[in-house]
């Protein structure tokens, strides 16, 4: 299964992610 987030944010929004990385509930996605 898959969860897709689609959201509006200021243009300078940044993801703190790497493609393919493991992630867990509660960990920061970006700011």
């Amino acid at each position: 299964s898959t969860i897709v987030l689609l959201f509006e944010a200021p243009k300078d929004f940044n993801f703190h992610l790497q493609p393919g990385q493991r992630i867990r509930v509660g960990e920061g996605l970006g700011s």
Partner: protein
Amino acid sequence: LNTGRGLLPRPRPLPLLLLTGGGYLGYQHYRKRGQEDGAPPPLATPTQVALYRSFPTRLLSRAWGRLNGVELPTWLRKPVYSLYIWTFGVNMQEAAVEDLHHYRNLGEFFRRRLKPAVRPICASSCLISPADGRILHFGRVKNSEVEQVKGVTYSLENFLGPQKRRGSDSSSSFRDLLLSSPDNDLFHAVVYLAPGDYHCFHSPTDWRVELRRHFPGSLMSVNPGVARWVKELFCLNERVVLTGQWQHGFFSLTAVGATNVGSIRVYFDQELQTNAPHYSKGSFHDRNYVAADDQVLRVAGEGGAVPVDGEGVALHRGEAVGEFNLG
């Protein structure tokens, strides 16, 4: 014909097998080499997608759900769940209940809860992960196309369905429809949950859900390999789209089902019924949480009625929102 037949050597199974198998391996080798040259993997043709969709995945999914609803005798629980744990790398130390005999069937085991302390909420980020899994893709939405994996896109409008237009401006793009300010942009992130992952999903931020849109659909696998192969996969599969507003404007969370995990529950929406035996193609079912002025909406949550004022269902960062179920 008889003479002809007499002249041809009788086809021996082994050489025939070697010939066809070798041919297939050769085809695969050159196909892979094409990918190593940096070319994106070839997408499935419409015929291949239609063929895949014609496969009775819903029937399979529902049968799989029935099987996993069968209560296991106590002595069988440990071996069955231990096999599942070993196969999919489940970390039982994090489970709220570690005793395997507690789970009456695999469906219950799949819905296991975690100890609250094992998933601390990041305080410094305005957006947190809604689920355990692997980041399949993330980034800025260009035009009105979203990438399910690098290089394979799907249409935003097909994915979310029609949105109410602001004002009378009909020329704006679908993407502009969603934005509340020209200083903002649309972003997306895709989390893939593997079979051994914890399968509840939580609120990624503080926001209000205004609309739930349930798209019945196919239940193809959403394995990353299939996501690379089937364009618009997320628009073809059964999914539940929650849309609303957060501090920066538009926000949506979508749970996409798959063959083995065909059912989606949203705790504050007891009306939602997924993975039904029959559905009409292309249909979707809305539930609006923004009450008309005089109406006070109350929705039943997992722990009783969830407070809903006229502005939708308020969700807080990290709050449990729903879960995927087997079958």
